[in-house]
């Protein structure tokens, strides 16, 4: 962490986006995390993605649980709504907020302790319900705030900073999200923003439960030889299956790609995702194939990154529940109490 505030001075050429903000306007308070924490890079990637997408900060709600990762919403989007909830309970608070006002962009920020241990149940259910959100899991394999014990996502056989070997089997949150029905699943690496920022943009554009697992090395407790979440290990074992080249709201005729090197995933809301294939055989619209692929490579000690699965026909919780379009705070007494005649009609329909 640093003790002085980041100066407000900025580069003279710093550009504004279409809603009149510079990238610096999407920053939050100065981070109190350890110097070099991967989480700070993820915050920077979120800032970059929101700026690039011309998102108005006041249309975003950030929700988090407890842990290093869950502190980070304080360090980005300082002009957005925020709710630092109870340990492992971010998904249910987010679900409630989303039901009350579906017009905001929901960023759920959590860590491996918050999501894979105390909040594992909540994690599973928020995915299967299809809540429209971007769930970002800042995954470093340790409990950083309590001095680096293994978390539930730590790989079996990996070593702690003091040399202890992890004997428990890891929870793979990507596989879990795929199983539970998340309609957008991706994995990124905090040390590669060229990959991470487009993944976050695609996740934000996705309507439905979007899950982004971000490997985020803990420089204080999990960046040593023997760790499988260190900068060096992740760089050596990173298997990116594709790169997102762009996300467009309407398809354009652009080419220059060799046949078979590009995948286009048109979403039914008009969004088009264009991916450059890095692993020729990989099909990011095949959920079962994705599960197999991830598991297969994981068994070889490789970390599969990129856009792993996107369902172009995704639906969300509101569609399932036939809820009203208007946010609750916009409903008038007239909407909520339609009067005796309406009640009579309902009752009549049930007789």
């Amino acid at each position, binding site marked *: 962490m640093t003790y*002085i505030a980041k*100066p407000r*001075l*900025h*580069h003279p*050429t710093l550009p504004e986006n279409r809603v009149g903000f510079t990238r610096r306007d999407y920053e939050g308070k100065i981070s109190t995390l350890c110097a070099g924490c991967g989480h*700070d*890079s993820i915050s920077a990637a979120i800032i970059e993605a929101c700026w690039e997408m011309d998102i108005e900060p006041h249309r975003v709600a950030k929700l988090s649980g407890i842990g290093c990762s869950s502190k980070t919403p304080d360090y980005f989007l300082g002009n957005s709504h925020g709710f630092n909830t109870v340990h492992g309970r971010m998904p249910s608070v987010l679900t409630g907020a989303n039901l009350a006002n579906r017009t905001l962009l929901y960023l759920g920020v959590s860590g491996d302790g918050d999501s894979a241990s105390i909040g594992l149940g909540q994690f599973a259910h928020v995915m299967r319900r299809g809540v429209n959100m971007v769930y970002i899991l800042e995954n470093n394999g340790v409990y950083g705030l309590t001095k680096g014990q293994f978390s539930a996502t730590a790989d079996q056989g990996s070593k702690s900073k003091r040399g202890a070997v992890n004997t428990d089997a890891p929870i793979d949150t990507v596989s879990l999200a795929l199983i539970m029905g998340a309609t957008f699943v991706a994995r990124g690496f905090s040390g590669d923003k060229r990959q991470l920022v487009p993944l976050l943009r695609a996740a934000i554009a996705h309507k439905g439960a979007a899950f982004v697992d971000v490997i985020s*090395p803990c420089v204080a407790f999990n960046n040593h030889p023997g760790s499988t979440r260190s900068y060096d290990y992740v760089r050596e074992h990173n298997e990116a299956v594709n790169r997102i080249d762009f996300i467009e709201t309407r398809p354009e005729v652009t080419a220059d790609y060799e046949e078979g090197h590009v995948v286009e995933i048109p979403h039914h809301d008009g969004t088009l995702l264009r991916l450059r294939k890095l692993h020729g055989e990989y099909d990011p619209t095949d959920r079962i194939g994705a599960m197999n692929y991830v598991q297969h490579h994981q068994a070889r000690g490789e970390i599969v990154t990129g856009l792993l699965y996107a369902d172009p026909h995704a639906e969300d919780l509101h569609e399932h529940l036939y809820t009203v379009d208007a946010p609750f705070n916009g409903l008038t007494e007239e909407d909520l109490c339609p009067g005796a005649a309406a009640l009579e009609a309902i009752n009549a329909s049930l007789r």
Partner: protein
Amino acid sequence: MDPTNIRDPDYFHKVVDCQWACPAHTPVPEYIRLISAGRYSDAYMVNWASNVFPGILGRTCDRPCEPACRRGRVEEENVEKPEPVAICRLKRVAADLKDDIRDRLPRPPTQRNGKRVACIGAGPSALTVARDLAPLGYSLTVLDADPKAGGFMRTQVPRFRLPESVIDEETGYILDLGVEFIGGRRIDSLEDLLAEGYDAVFVGSGAPRGRDLQLPGRTEAAKHIHIGIDWLASVSFGHIEKVGRRVIVLGGGNTAMDCCRSARRLGGEEVKVIVRSGFDEMKASPWEKEDAMHEGIPILNFMVPKSFEHENGRLTGMTFEKVQAVRDADGRRTLVPTGEPDVLVPCDEVLVAVGQENAFPWIERDLGLEFDRHGLPVLDAKTMQSTLPRVFFGGDAAFGPKNIITAVAQGHEAAVSIDKFLQGEDLSERPAPHLNLVSQKMGIHEWSYDNDVSQSSRQAVPWAAADKALKSIKVEVELGFDAAAAFREAQRCLNCDVQTVFAKSLCIECDACVDICPMDSITFTMNGDEADLRVRLKAPAENTAQALYVSEPLRTNRVMVKDEDVCLHCGLCAERCPTGAWDMQKFLIEMTHAGPGCRTPRREAA
């Protein structure tokens, strides 16, 4: 690009824009930090060692440092009016608020080395030579036509800009080093002086002749037409105490500004500055133009003087032709008449300040001292040595009129040359400046400099009330910062001498520095040639005058590229770096001055 060689003494020196721009390479951020700390005497001594006349320069310097100051660039698009740090005024603060520093000055040598050096002229360059050489044991004799030392600083800079007490103090520090000063002796023959047996002679006689303007009516109205620098000298010595009611000052340089403001104080009610070319093309420093206009002196431009109008030997006015600037086919700018009728400007007196020239009628042309076709001595630009080996030049006498700080810098170089010459060494072998690069880390996120960047804007300097200031030529106009304003202004300095030093072997490429850098100065990317890299960085590096700091390839084969242009030197990259790959290190360069440090190292026999 090849990895940057930070061992090259020039690399980090260029990053300290102010110091690099200063002819004497005064370590500006170093003394500004001392001012922040209230250590005015220490700040003064840092200046004194480098530029010899801190109190004088703090009032009169041409300030090449300020247009170069990074603060001005950093504030672009951030504040309404981007402005550099008021370096010059801070220098004056050090001089004004210091304690008695006399016991910190070198002592006159107890033993002389037997070598005698004469300095012709007692201006800034000659006094610098005397200061550098006297403590080493040389016998220095400084000769000047004027009764007191100071040269141009005393005779031509008006008192309302530079009080006499400051000149007395700072010239006194030098003369007290056991220097023999002979005032009132004009040198009429270099040959005669050389015959007095000096081992070396330094010519720092300035550019004593003001250019005249031979126009119709010049001789008839001669009584009311004066050469600017001569007139200023007469004012300085009290020979002139009054001027006519309506005064025209011809010329657009700093001398013209001094003339018009002096005239305003000697009874000139309607004082006008008239220049041939455009207002923007004037040679005067912008702040001197502002000061003149502030005192109600209009500056009229694009008017070429045609004739002096007179009646019975009395000047009545001047006629001017109106012109405009036109670019010809080659893009050269020329002044052509607009065709409008000539303008008659009535006046009682005219001050001609259209330039100065060097004059060496007192140097015999058969001594072996060569002159070029402009009448300037042929010199080695580095050693300041003339073609007569024991005669050296400096200041305006060397390469024509410049400014005080350039004269001081040339004086230092000449002193090194004279020292080496009299020690029988090769003058061209000049040891590189002494370089020091020291980490400023004191603890976790604790630095020995204040890295919290101040957001305040340039402090205004208080002025004497206009009515009071214009009544007397001796009332100093600028009053200087008080301690509180000086602190606020000093805090605006970005500490550009505290360098961001990158250790490639420690970097784990976590991006922490990239994310935190407020100015987007740092990028990790694949290497390329410079033009390619400059457009690929996180923020475009459009200022090609500023270097890119490029590392060796990192583990991912990328390189770290830092654009030095608008770096705040806030140290956040180093605070955020988990491995200490970034460090903030203070760069201190000690210019080579006369003395043991400038001598060629002798190799002991193996």
